[in-house]
């Protein structure tokens, strides 16, 4: 931040209050053990995703998400030099798969939740702020979505669009936005009636200024918490859909797809149930820690960014 400081000295302006707030938030996150665990988990995964080409060098750089495999033997092989986590059915390398699968997980989580947030906040604030017939129409549409079970609806949409990871993401976006729109609308309805909204209007602020500066910042916390928790949940749902055989093609680096691939070897032969433990446990643990990390972080963010709890 030295350049900020320099400019400040040059022009003689004081430190920006937002910078103050940011340092305060950061210190709060670093003091809470749970959020620290969450944050470090996410950080580790982020590093794995960033340095995937160095950790697991792709054989074909033009399609790095394709897991390399040697031979077509269906029986998994335990960890050995060259294959640190062993190989799964058809000799796909588990290590390579989970490392590159981290990128896929981030892509799914962030893109799905990001799009859901944008759609949900936009639709929800229009619905809540303007009310009336617009509200009525939008809310009935969300009712239709919410009347169907999330997973079944997502499955139906993926089946209709065709089997692929991109279609899983699309279907999750279609299925996920109504809850966000509902949440945003609900909090906007209560904020809209507050005196300070009236006061902002009396100061001469326009509709969009009122929505974005006065109403949304008050209404957005529940939905942001929901979002940070949902990044994990969406990855989990995507993995479930992949497991059901709706995801990427065989051999694509995706955790759900890898578990799905090893379906027949979850339980070993008679007398040795844990013989092939590595085929499910390792991708499973990656999914577990990824989701756990986001959940812990989400919890911590709620405590830190809610101004009513913030300085307690």
């Amino acid at each position, binding site marked *: 931040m030295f350049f900020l400081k320099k*400019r400040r000295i*040059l*022009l*003689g*302006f*004081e430190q*920006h*209050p937002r910078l*103050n707030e940011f340092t305060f938030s950061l210190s709060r996150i670093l003091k809470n053990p749970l959020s620290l665990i969450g944050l470090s988990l996410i950080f580790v995964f982020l590093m794995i995703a960033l340095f995937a080409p160095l950790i697991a060098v792709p054989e074909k750089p033009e399609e790095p998400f394709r897991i390399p495999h040697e031979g077509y033997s269906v029986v998994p092989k335990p960890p050995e030099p060259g294959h640190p986590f062993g190989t799964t059915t058809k000799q796909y390398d588990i290590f390579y798969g989970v490392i590159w699968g981290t990128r896929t997980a981030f892509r799914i989580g962030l893109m799905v939740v990001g799009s859901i947030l944008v759609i949900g906040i936009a639709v929800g604030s229009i619905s809540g702020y303007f009310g*009336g017939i617009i509200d009525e129409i939008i809310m009935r549409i969300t009712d239709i979505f919410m009347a169907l079970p999330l997973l079944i609806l997502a499955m139906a949409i993926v089946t209709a669009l065709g089997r692929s990871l991109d279609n899983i993401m699309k279907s999750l976006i279609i299925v996920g936005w109504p809850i966000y729109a509902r949440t945003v609308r609900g909090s906007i309805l209560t904020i809209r009636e*507050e*005196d*300070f909204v*009236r*006061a*902002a*209007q*009396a*100061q*001469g*602020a*326009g509709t*969009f*200024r009122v929505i*974005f*500066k*006065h109403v949304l*910042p*008050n209404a957005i916390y529940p939905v942001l918490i929901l979002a940070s928790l949902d990044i994990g949940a969406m990855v989990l749902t995507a993995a479930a859909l992949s497991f059901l055989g709706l995801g990427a093609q065989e051999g694509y680096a995706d955790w759900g797809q890898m578990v799905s691939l090893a379906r027949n070897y979850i339980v070993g032969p008679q007398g040795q149930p844990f013989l092939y433990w590595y085929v499910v446990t390792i991708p499973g643990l990656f999914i577990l820690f990824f989701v756990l990390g986001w959940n812990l972080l989400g919890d911590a963010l709620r405590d830190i960014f809610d*101004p*009513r709890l913030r300085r307690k």
Partner: protein
Amino acid sequence: MPVQEMQSAESVLEIDKLKVNFYTYEGVVKAIDEISFALEDGDTLGIVGETGCGKSVTVLSILRLILPPGRIESGCILYGTKDACIDLAQKNDEFMRSIRGNDISMIFQEAGNALNPVLSIGDQVRESFLLHQQQELCKSVLKRLSQKGDRQSGYRRFLSWRYQRKLRRAAGNGLKDRRYGRLLKIEAMRWSVDLLRNLGIPNPDELVKRYPHELSGGMQQRVVISMALACNPAVLIADEPTSNLDVTIQAQILQLLEELKKRYHSSILFITHDLGVVSEVSDKVIVLYAGTVVEFAEVRELFKKPLHPYTRALLHSVPSLGSKKRLESIGGNVPNLINPPSGCRFHPRCPHVMDICKKQKPDLYRGMGNSDKSHLAACFLYQQEGAA
């Protein structure tokens, strides 16, 4: 017409036969029924009435902030001097936005609710400047940039160029939201600190970084007042600014308003249900009952010689120190405004009720044997004496 009598040459705000209805499921609530009054330049006009008589609705309709299902049915809201006066009831929302906060501003009832909990005090105070004084802010930024040091660095030249462009745009259509730029915001923050200091708030540099919940009720009210005064409005509407403060703070706030009125040459429309406060601050008083004006008078005149039966009853029901008389209450209930009583809206509770009261709505009549033109009551008791 009585309306003309109430006006004088230098009135800044005139309400003429304003009518506001609320369309609810149970029926049409006739909240305001043809109210007329005028606010004179440099005056403080008190509006008194019990809860639900339409005080707040009146002032919100002046700012055109009545939300659906409410609607202004008819009437004029004339703002400005005689020669250059505009009817706010006819203007569109964009024009109203330039009026709100700049020419007419409002102090809200509960300061704690009128401040946004997630924005710092400085953020909220400077918003008035950012919305209405963009040109002045730009000029001030440019001046500051040219003052700093003798050496003109490239970065500073770039900044000057940028803010000159902003100044041109502000002079045209006005800057759009989020196009203010950092320096403009910092400048506005500086102005806010000055403003708060001028209002006698201790330690304003510290205060602008705080959030509303960290302040006391009196302090919050001062901040709200400063927000309303930021752009030096011609008309200041104070909607029960002291209603939930304790008496010492109340006195301070009232004194502050009095000083500010003199310093900024504003006119104040002061709403309250507290007769004590009204006698303290206002020059003239309007008494509202169930959405109608029942009496208009100089403040001393009103307390000395109330004309309308409702005003009399109201004054009788206020405890006075040292008197051992039992307090009287007004018989009956406040009428339901969906089905207001015919004729005079006070007639079912009036001790002097006559036949005509039930049929016809009274105009404002001059008081009994009173040479003073500015004491009017909406009651048929005074019809003969002061035919208007």
